[in-house]
């Protein structure tokens, strides 16, 4: 009885505590909550907001000795230099082509794979295949590029050994401009198709099963069920995924390209990040390469904002 009264007393105190009593008392009351958030706040300030402010060196003739505060301002000089440079067109073309190939050949595959997996009635089989196809997502690009080199090497790779054994000439996959983009696309398909099915399979499971039963009674074949029930039901998810993908069209798998790149394919492989790395980190042109990175980020920002607006129009929650 006594403890109950004590509890009631405490309850009214907690309710009172939740009421706002002005800024400083509130902050004092929640000091432990701020303490919990503090490491995170510091992280975002130092590693996200300081670099955002640091992009001002795109407008400077930045010298590490003088620092941001004392380096000379040059206005849009770096941007003018970049846009009048033939490299700009090459970087833009490579980014667009790699993105476009991924959109065309990679994007539909998780949808197809999900539809196939959805037709499997044998649970253990379905789960086994799912486990297998999710796995490559977790492997690093170093591993995947490394395995590609082991398999495709012209002198010792098993693929070329098989080609020779079958009477064909060996083929130079790795230092060949013609196949570079295709190779990137295939690697991406191998790594990410399975992972991409997770969202789509979830959308498929939310379809009302009564629809299928009704269709069966009406004599619809499984192909027709897929075409008339499953696909329309997941149409919005697909559209949203497509729009979001378009919003990130400037983002290509940079680590992958960095690792796959070699002197013979630079022309078709160079993208914004590899260019920034080479000119900035390796050659010390900090101002210029920051300007290149900033250009990419701003275009990316605009695309992502548009994409989110569009995605929300299709009745789905956007990303933010």
């Amino acid at each position, binding site marked *: 009885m006594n403890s109950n009264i004590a*509890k009631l007393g*405490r*309850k009214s105190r907690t309710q009172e505590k939740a009421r706002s009593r002005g800024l400083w008392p509130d902050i004092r009351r*929640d000091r432990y909550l701020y303490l*919990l958030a503090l*490491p995170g706040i510091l*992280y*975002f300030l130092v*590693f*996200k*907001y300081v*670099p*955002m402010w*640091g*992009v001002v*060196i795109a407008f400077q003739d930045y010298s590490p000795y003088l620092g941001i505060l004392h380096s000379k301002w040059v206005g849009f000089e770096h941007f003018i230099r970049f846009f009048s440079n033939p490299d700009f067109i090459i970087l833009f073309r490579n980014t667009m082509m790699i993105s476009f190939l991924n959109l065309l050949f990679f994007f539909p595959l998780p949808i197809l794979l999900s539809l*196939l997996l959805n*037709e*499997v009635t044998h649970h253990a*089989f379905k789960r086994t*295949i799912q486990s*297998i*196809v*999710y*796995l490559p997502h977790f*492997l690093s*690009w*170093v*591993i995947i590029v*490394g*395995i590609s*080199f*082991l398999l495709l090497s012209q002198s010792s*790779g*098993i693929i070329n*050994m098989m080609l020779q*054994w079958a009477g064909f000439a060996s083929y130079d996959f790795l*230092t060949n401009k013609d196949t570079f983009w295709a190779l990137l696309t295939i690697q991406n398909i*191998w790594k990410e198709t*399975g992972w991409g099915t*997770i*969202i789509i399979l979830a959308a498929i499971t939310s379809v009302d099963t009564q629809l299928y039963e009704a269709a069966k009674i009406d004599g619809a*074949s*499984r*192909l027709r069920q897929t075409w008339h029930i499953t696909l329309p039901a997941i149409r919005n998810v697909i559209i949203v995924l497509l729009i979001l993908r378009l919003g990130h069209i400037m983002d290509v798998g940079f*680590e992958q390209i*960095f690792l796959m790149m*070699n*002197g013979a394919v*630079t022309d078709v492989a160079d993208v914004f990040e590899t260019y920034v*790395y*080479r000119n900035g980190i*390796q050659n010390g042109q*900090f101002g210029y390469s*920051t300007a290149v990175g900033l250009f*990419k*980020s701003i275009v990316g*920002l605009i695309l992502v904002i548009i994409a989110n607006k569009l995605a929300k129009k299709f009745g789905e929650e956007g*990303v*933010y």
Partner: protein
Amino acid sequence: MKLSIGSRLFNAANYAVLSLIGIVTLFPLYYVLVVSFTDSHEFAEKNGFILFPTNWSLAAYEYLFSTSAFINAAAVSTFLATVGTALSLIVTAAMAFSLSRKRLRGRQFMLVAIVITLLFNPGIIPPYLVVKELGLINSVWSLIIPVLTSGWYVILMKSFFDSIPVELEEAAMIDGSTDLGTFFRIVLPLSAPALAAFGLFYAVAYWNTFFSAVLYINDFAKVPLQIVLRNMLVDSSTSTGGSAAVEMISEQQIPTQTIKMAAVVISTLPIVCIYPFLQKHFTKGVMLGSVKG
């Protein structure tokens, strides 16, 4: 219900196609595993046509574990995947919990500030200069602190905490629990599946750390596994080159195919081993991301 002939044909074709996809996915990994255990002479004799070795050999593994470069790098990566993951989970969960308290002053402001970091990416150079100014270059902490948490994970974890029934927390409050007590005794234990999923994602990201090391680590004694792998697997004479670390290892003897494959196996093994245990959690993690956003 009896299946029609068309339906049965479709089933057969579907199972065949899916099995083929499974084989295509697994074959490269299986081949790498087999070759890593093959005697290097047998590998040379058969020109790499090996589906099952006749002469088993552990020579490649013995060689790898006798080189200090490989062992050092594996130790660095293990440090990242354990200490880094633990720190990231703590920082992310603590911030997410704080932001999930609706009465917190400045909460909305902080959430917007976090979303902004997701939308605008300052590129490679400005963060590099920050790390350099902080004196973290060539420190193993440069591979942890600059990626300590992520706006995505803070927001996702916050929405997970939001989904915990308020009644549970209120009950704890009535029993005199403080916010810290609620966090450690109620919210964290209830969030074990989410923590497992985020932990997996962090651990894999740390284990796969590559480009930060290209940027920040020049001292070969401190490079993580992925850098050593890259130097072994991707011919450094044809690639773009990188930090000084890249040039340093290319002076080592060129490893044979079997040694390269053994290196791939060892660095893939931890992921393959923890993978089955966490599979049911990570699909939940992905769904959390797509549903809540």
